[in-house]
């Protein structure tokens, strides 16, 4: 490199993040999560030993090995087939995630663009968020049909909507005043400012929200199922296996839901790393 450039905070050997492709992200994520996975497996083994030693009744807490066996035995067939149930629930959750996210981003864009809209919509949204929304599940079932996946998806969507809307609005509005003055000096239009400043500024906020609401969407779908719906769903499987005292199956269904949530979350993390690689570098995570 040419000498005498002055203070070299970063050498030219580490330019940008061109190397951050999917493979690298997966490998790094694997390294990052490996200790947690090991602790989790260790805890399962400990549980197994302790439950066995204390002779805990299986209807209180079934042993991990019994849960895994129940998962295997009820995977794709039988009265409590879990795999098709998980797929249905995941579909509902995904549908809700998409609907809630699209609506949340749309309202956020409107509130960021029109101050009047912000004045009207934000207090309403805050008020709406204070309502225990999950209480509406029976109503949604009533409105859209007990067996209609849409009634579950909408429950998920309502839960997803607020965090997405609130976070993206913050990202769009909380722009450094200096950035706006710079754009003003270029005589940039509001539309240009939105595209070149507000939206890029909001992307990290958006992904932060997305990481939270993936879980919300599963909660929404499963809880809505508790109040009735297709039997091929995790929520119904949990309710029915529990009332049949098949608690190993219940735990199996919960475990499956948890695993789905974790995969969901990891997908968002991966997409975030690909879309805004600089954000992770800024946080010092690479």
């Amino acid at each position, binding site marked *: 490199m040419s000498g005498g450039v002055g*203070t*070299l905070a970063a050498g030219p050997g580490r330019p940008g993040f061109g190397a951050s492709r999917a493979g690298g992200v997966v490998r790094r994520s694997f390294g990052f999560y490996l200790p947690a996975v090991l602790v989790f497996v260790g805890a399962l083994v400990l549980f197994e030993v302790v439950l066995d030693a204390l002779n805990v009744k299986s209807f209180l807490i079934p042993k991990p090995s019994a849960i895994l066996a129940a998962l295997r035995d009820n995977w794709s067939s039988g009265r409590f087939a879990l795999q098709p149930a998980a797929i249905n629930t995941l579909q509902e959750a995904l549908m809700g995630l998409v609907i809630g996210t699209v609506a949340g981003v749309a309202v956020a864009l409107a509130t960021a663009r029109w101050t009047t809209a912000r004045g009207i919509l934000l207090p309403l949204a805050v008020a709406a968020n204070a309502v225990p929304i999950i209480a509406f599940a029976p109503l949604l079932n009533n409105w859209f049909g007990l067996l209609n996946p849409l009634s579950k998806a909408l429950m998920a969507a309502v839960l997803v909507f607020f965090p997405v809307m609130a976070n993206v609005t913050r990202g769009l509005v909380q722009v450094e*005043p200096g950035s706006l003055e710079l754009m003003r000096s270029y005589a940039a239009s509001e539309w240009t400012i939105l595209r070149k400043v507000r939206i890029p500024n909001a992307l990290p906020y958006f992904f932060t929200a997305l990481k939270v609401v993936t879980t919300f969407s599963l909660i929404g779908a499963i809880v809505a199922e508790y109040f009735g719906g297709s039997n091929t769903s995790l929520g119904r499987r949990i309710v029915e296996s529990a009332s049949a005292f098949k608690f190993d199956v219940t735990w199996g269904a919960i475990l499956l839901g948890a695993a789905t949530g974790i995969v969901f979350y990891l997908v968002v993390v991966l997409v975030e790393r690909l879309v805004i690689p600089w954000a992770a570098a800024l946080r010092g995570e690479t």
Partner: protein
Amino acid sequence: MTASSPAPVVRIAGVDKTFGRGDRVVTKALEAIDLDIARGEFVSLIGPSGCGKSTLLRIVGDLTSPSTGTVQVNGKSAEQARRDRDYGMVFQAPVLFDWRTVEDNVKLPLEILGYDAARRTARAREMLELVELGDFLKHHPFQLSGGMQQRVAIARALAFEPAILLMDEPFGALDEMTRERMNGEVLRIWEQTGTTILFVTHSIPEAVFLSTRVVVMSARPGRITKIVNVDLPRPRTDDTREERRYFELVTEVREALRAGGGDLDDSGTIDGMDAASMERTIAEGAVG
């Protein structure tokens, strides 16, 4: 205007600026400012904190408007000049976008001005070579030091060849060594590009070293108390800072400042706020 005196790039006439709420005047920032800046000049505004020097620069750049008086840039109103993209602005903070690489930050104004892709790339690289950051095209701002970030901001401001460069304490946040080196850089760039520069600073040596003229302002309300012509030979180098004439001029500016009342401090702020945030605060109704 006669043929013998070419039209000034900037003509400030009878500018007052008061900050207030409704009819109530909270602060009188500027009073009766008249100043012409000719093409290719390097003019520094210097004064005690709260003298309104940043406000004056912001009025020239149409980031705020004068309460009375007019500003003309190339014979146009300041607003029209801004719409014509006559201004390159460099603030105390570099105001770079972390999501853009160094190169893409410099390209930002070129995108807004509608340059085609090839011309954007060529121009951005040329400017980054000029500020000696050609090896850092693909870095992101947060990977650079403060001095390097400010050089990116300068490259960005120069990229679209604005008629005038407005620099608002661009090196105020840098340490003395970096600052002196950046002064040398700015002079070199100014000599290479022949651009007109209006420069706000609270450093007397910086003002004298850089300028063709130093405009000395008094404490609030800001008035022009003296204009010091800097007749140091060019090119100015590190040796310039050790010449007798340099010290004489520094002394002249310092005495003019003292006569105008108020001392320089290190912050260059109004009650700890810069002009921009003070305006915002007043606009939001938190003051007064």
